[in-house]
């Protein structure tokens, strides 16, 4: 057992040596990302352990520029001689690509000067052993099954934790470069009970909790009970008739919509002309109620990062301000492609080149209590689940499978399923006419409950 600081320092050393080796091998610049993680995941079902998986993994991703040509490689073989050979081969590989004048490091003064402490690592996460993990999962599942006799089966409960470190180094000929690292941790618990419906169908619902710090997890029993509540609520789900009506998205479904929105404000989609929001900066892209922010600097945030995948300082970006599109999310390459400056939105994994990646991408909560969001709705749809891939980023056409509840007389009514909700995304966001105060912060893309004035629902042909 050694300190996490020592682990970060070791990885930073490996990254720096690999990047320097790239320059020695003839690259103008080389960037190396090293990550090292230890994971434990357990699954229980019907009161018994089903899976215990434990492992550690370490890998290095490399990008080199040579005569403005790029190559991107990764390996899990980090023995010094093997790594040296791998780096030299990567530099050689770059000869195959064609020069792109935008393949160049950012200026030295753009690299992050400091690495802010964002409280992303909890040493207590790593201390959770298989026995404790199984115990949490077993208690959560037991609570879901004990909640009601209507819970007849279970897909089980899972507990997972991951704890590790990441280091990133950039070296360039005659350049100061960049090197930094940080530790992070994450743990999660999810439960999925099953109930039998009268029509022979089975109904499943789920609930989960996740956090970077163990102490921030919801109590296991409560996760189980909430999962049971959600499952039972779906009993008797039916289609409804085709027609247009207001739609309320709960925070989980809202998050799915927000994730799609992030994809169309990404610099990569803009320069590839694969977004309906091309040439829309400073114009209205959502209703005045909408404020959308990407904030990598949230303490303990699930999507927080102290610097971006190009080595630039992480910064908070207001993407949509009172409905007006303020900025796209840009990394160094897409910014240059669009003739502007990066706003620090590069994400990077070991397996690939940096690309625009959201951090904590959040639709800011409104002031309306959740129950009030439904008030005054005579007949509307409350969506809890979205299914499928029906989104054309280029045109904004959106059509997905949905399940949830009918809203009648301002109250949640009977469960509905096997229907679709459709609209053009541009119209959908402009039609947001109420935003709840219940922001769900469990995930890196996060939404409160919100309401869209009207969407088309496809279901059965009767009334």
């Amino acid at each position, binding site marked *: 057992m050694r300190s996490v600081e020592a682990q970060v320092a070791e990885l930073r050393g490996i990254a720096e040596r690999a990047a320097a080796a790239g320059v020695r091998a003839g690259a103008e610049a080389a960037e190396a990302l090293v990550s090292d993680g230890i994971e434990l995941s357990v699954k229980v079902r019907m009161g018994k352990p*089903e*899976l*215990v998986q*434990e*492992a550690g*993994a370490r*890998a290095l991703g490399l990008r080199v520029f040579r005569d403005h040509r790029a*190559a*991107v*490689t*990764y*390996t*899990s073989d980090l023995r010094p001689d093997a790594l040296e050979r791998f780096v030299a*081969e990567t530099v050689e*590989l770059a000869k*195959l*690509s*064609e020069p*792109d004048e935008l393949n160049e490091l950012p200026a030295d003064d753009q690299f992050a000067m400091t690495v802010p402490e964002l409280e992303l690592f909890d040493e207590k996460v790593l201390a959770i052993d298989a026995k404790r993990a199984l115990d949490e999962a077993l208690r959560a599942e037991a609570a879901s099954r004990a909640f009601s006799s209507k819970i007849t*089966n279970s*897909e089980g409960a899972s507990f997972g934790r991951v704890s590790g470190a990441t280091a990133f180094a950039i070296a360039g000929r005659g350049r100061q470069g960049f090197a930094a690292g940080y530790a992070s941790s994450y743990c999660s618990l999810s439960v999925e009970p*099953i109930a039998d*419906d009268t029509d022979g*169908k*089975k*109904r499943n619902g789920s609930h989960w909790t996740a956090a970077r710090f163990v102490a921030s997890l919801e109590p296991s029993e409560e996760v189980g009970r909430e999962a049971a509540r959600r499952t039972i609520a779906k009993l008797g*789900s039916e*289609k409804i008739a085709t*027609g247009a009506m207001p739609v309320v998205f709960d925070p989980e479904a809202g998050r799915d919509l927000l994730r799609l929105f992030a994809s169309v404000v990404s610099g990569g989609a803009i320069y*590839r*002309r694969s977004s*309906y929001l091309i040439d829309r900066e400073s114009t209205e892209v959502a209703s005045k109620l909408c404020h959308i922010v990407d904030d990598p600097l949230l303490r303990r945030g699930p999507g927080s990062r102290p610097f971006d995948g190009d080595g630039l300082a992480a910064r908070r970006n207001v993407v949509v301000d009172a409905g007006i599109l303020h900025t796209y999310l840009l990394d160094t390459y897409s910014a240059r492609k669009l003739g502007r400056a990066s706003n620090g939105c590069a994400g990077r994994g070991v*397996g*690939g*080149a940096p690309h625009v990646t959201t951090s904590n991408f959040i639709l800011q909560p409104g002031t309306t209590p959740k129950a009030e969001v439904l008030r005054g709705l005579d007949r509307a749809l409350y969506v809890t689940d979205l*299914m*499928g*891939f*029906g*989104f*054309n980023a*280029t*045109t904004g*056409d959106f*059509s*997905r*499978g949905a*399940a949830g509840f009918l809203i009648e007389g301002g109250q949640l009514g009977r469960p509905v*399923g*096997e*229907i*679709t*909700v*459709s609209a053009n995304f541009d119209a959908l966001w402009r039609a947001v006419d109420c935003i709840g105060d219940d922001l769900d912060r469990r995930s890196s893309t996060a939404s409160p409950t919100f309401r869209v004035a009207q969407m*088309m*629902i*496809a*279901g*059965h*042909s009767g009334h």
Partner: protein
Amino acid sequence: MTNSEGSRLDAIDAALARRLLEAALSTGGDYADLFFEYRTSADYSYEDQRVKSVGRGITLGLGVRVLKGDATGYAYCEQLDTDAMQRAARTAAQIAAAGASPPPVEVRAIQIPDFYPVATPTLEVVPTEKLELLRRGDRAARAADPRITKVVVSFAEELKEILIVTADGLLYRDRQPLMRYGVYAIAEAGGKRQTGSSGGGGRKGMDYFADRTPEGHGAEAARVALAMLDAVDAPAGEMEVVLGAGDSGILLHEAIGHGLEADFNRKQTSNYSGRIGQRVASELCTVVDDGTVSHTRGAINVDDEGHPGQRNVLIENGILVGYLHDWLSAKHFRRGPSGNGRRQSFRHNPLPRMTNTYLTAGPHEADEILRSVKRGVFAKRFSGGQVNISNGDFVFSLTESYLIEDGQVTAPLKGVNLIGNGPEVLNKVTMLGNDFQLSDGIWTCGKDGQSVPVGVGTPTVKIAAITVGGTQA
């Protein structure tokens, strides 16, 4: 970074495997297996008329699994040194609490047929040949029409060598080449913008391009993007839908394939649980999962638990006759393995998964099927699908579809989703074409966070009623 130095797995021999199995079974496990993997991959992308990036990757590792009752202990390591491998074996063994089970007396190599012999995997072909394929696809898409404003072409390839050793002492080696080529085009005109794509591949060498040329894919991507420029809003509600041959097999994959994976049925969480012998589809429907279709993306010589790839009939003339099994479910149902225990990599434990899943040909002419529709939707291309195993609801997303009016294919429709319930929709298959096609190799299936390459196939299919998720009532 080439593969010319020979397999990194050559050093794994029967004696070493036996020692690792001994450690894995040292605490009383019922069963164990070892999964060694050496994967090399490369990718090339072409954008703005130049080779934008080239990439390579190497992974090497061992996954050790120990079973005790229905419980699995799993561990892996990325260094194949004795200490790391022994540690992984002992970690996985912790699932069992006491006692020791005997390791196999002897470990012997089993020979299996090769459904995808490739003399020279694309990964071993000089990269310049592949770069030329990218240029050809780009040129063809651009040449199709001046309204094509952007083209991206990609080529991805891998060579995966696996070695599996089971507690029964069986040792299997397999070499799995896989390549995929794709063209993506954007068309712009009159303030409208649309996209089209075309791609394919399989467990093939460069000979793939003899039948399916880069020019063909480039022209097809452009055709779709251009056709969609005129797309109108799709209708909303239940109606007749005709699915084109080939990629529409995604319907089978979602509507029924996942529901027949036996882990769900072992746990009784699928709506197909306990329904063997019952009618679950119209009698036109015979559904097969087949890992033996040569050179296809979904083919496997051996699954990732050491069971040879097989052809399995799942539904015969509408009657449910079988599930897709992994080792655990086969044991539970007291039957032989079906060759469907698959995993994404040595970092993942195996699950029952599909290979190539298809609906066999029927009696009707494709034209006759279209002509029989008064008003409906003709679905041709898809971006993907999803299913809820428990209640059977599934969706799939159309990226190229057309209105059918009075038996004629008319206006192209904007992107739209279809939603249905597996058993209900398969009972509404009222006509089936004689034009069966297997998809070209583009599909990847996700389950429990694991991705595996698969194939789908179908003839032209008519569904009497399914919900179309458009915006026009």
